[in-house]
């Protein structure tokens, strides 16, 4: 598996898009820091971008890589390697190279700006951890979609829809339901609904760490009570891990019956 991982990783590291992605974060980091002149504010702006962008890029890279390397995967399948190892290697290769673009692209400007002397280092690290989770989650989800869809265009469409749903539509439904049912106690509902969407979960995790939860109003207090504690942090990290593990598990189950 490590060999496959290595080659997928090299292959991606050499493609133009990995550099474009890396440069994008690099420029973004520099611009935010030197325009804002405030690490805390830069972290908040970055959060808004990362939370929408990393899932999108992870989804697109995952689907594209799967379909583009289809024939090559067939070559690998004819080698004496276990099926699941081939796909796990590819999956980790994509996720790690995307994560590297993110961490290096944002890390370099922040380190140069003097992150280590600032108190924002924990918030910033949390941001990177969440970004990494989102990469692993969305590459796994998109690989699932690609594995289940023979047609490239359809697969691409489903993957983008999945992203759109989790990044935009889910929030809309969530808000509408809060308005419609506002005469009922909603704290448990909103907590649970948040858990079912990795993007929402990541957003709230960061917002609460940033001490701006007052912006969230009444529900903010409920969230604060839950996520602010170590227990809440532990649970939400656990849920993020589940969001990685479950799609990976399904990938392996799907692979056992798939024809190439």
């Amino acid at each position, binding site marked *: 598996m490590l*060999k496959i991982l290595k080659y997928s990783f090299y292959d991606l590291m050499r493609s133009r898009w990995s550099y474009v992605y890396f440069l994008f974060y690099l420029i973004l980091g520099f611009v935010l820091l030197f325009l804002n002149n405030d690490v805390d504010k830069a972290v908040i702006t970055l959060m808004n971008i990362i939370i929408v962008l990393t899932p999108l890029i992870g989804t697109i890279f995952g689907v594209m890589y799967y379909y583009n390397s289809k024939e*090559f995967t067939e070559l690998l*399948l*004819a*080698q004496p390697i*276990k099926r699941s190892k081939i796909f796990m290697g590819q999956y980790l290769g994509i996720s790690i190279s995307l994560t590297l673009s993110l961490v290096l692209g944002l890390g370099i400007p922040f380190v140069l700006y003097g992150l280590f002397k600032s108190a924002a280092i924990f918030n910033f690290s949390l941001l990177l951890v969440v970004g990494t989770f989102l990469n692993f989650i969305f590459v796994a989800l998109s690989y699932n979609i690609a594995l289940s869809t023979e047609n490239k265009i359809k697969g691409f469409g489903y993957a983008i829809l999945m992203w759109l749903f989790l990044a935009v539509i889910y929030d809309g439904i969530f808000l509408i339901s809060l308005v419609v049912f506002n005469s009922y106690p909603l704290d448990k509902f909103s907590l649970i609904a948040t858990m079912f969407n990795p993007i929402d979960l990541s957003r709230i995790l960061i917002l609460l760490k940033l001490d701006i939860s007052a912006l969230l109003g009444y529900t903010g207090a409920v969230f604060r009570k839950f996520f602010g504690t170590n227990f809440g942090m532990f649970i939400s990290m656990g849920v993020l891990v589940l969001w990685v593990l479950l799609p990976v598990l399904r990938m392996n189950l799907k692979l056992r019956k798939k*024809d190439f």
Partner: protein
Amino acid sequence: MIEFKNLHKRFGKLVVLDGLDLEISKGGIFAILGPNGSGKTTLIKCLLGMVIPNKGDIIFDKKSVLDKWAYRNNLNYLPQIANFPPNLTVIELINMVKNLRPKDSDTEELIELFGLKSSLDKKLGNLSGGTKQKVNIVLAFMFDSDLIVLDEPTNGLDPIALIHLKEIIQKEKDKGKTILITTHIMSFVDEVADEIVFLLDGKIYFKGTIEALKKQTNNDNLEHAIANLIAKQYA
């Protein structure tokens, strides 16, 4: 050496292999023929473990291959479409495949033979279809395995490369290897194959030597003899 037992495969409603039984003995060149969509590639992919049959068993070297992977170390495969990661160079790809198999390989001679020396450092994405097919052939023949499976090996090759390909196939046969070939080029079959396996409607319709086929169909020309077999399907 290989035994397909009562093999069934359906893709949705489409029945591709319908209780296929086939035994292939060790040594020699076997051409798997049949009209388009007769299940040639599916049969090969079942053997390789890429397509999972609905029913039946495949025995290779006295062991079932279903759900296994280690047996593929004794098997070389040339896929129909040669498409590689565009960002790797030819030599990197060759080294990678070498790296994936715990086995000795011989590439020098093959690279020389197909004139790939000047392309070794080129990226695979920049190669022409024919050159990619040559790389594909190098990958398929560089290991010393008992079974070699070639799916449309002549695709896109120039005449010189084709002559070299025939030479290699002959050489491997002389070493006692078993070689399975699917192709639509009948002159190629006539030249290299020892035995023909003809697939129709997911079953073996004919298995035997070229001579036997010509006799059975009362035809001196292999192309016409095969056309004769296929015509029955259209009738």
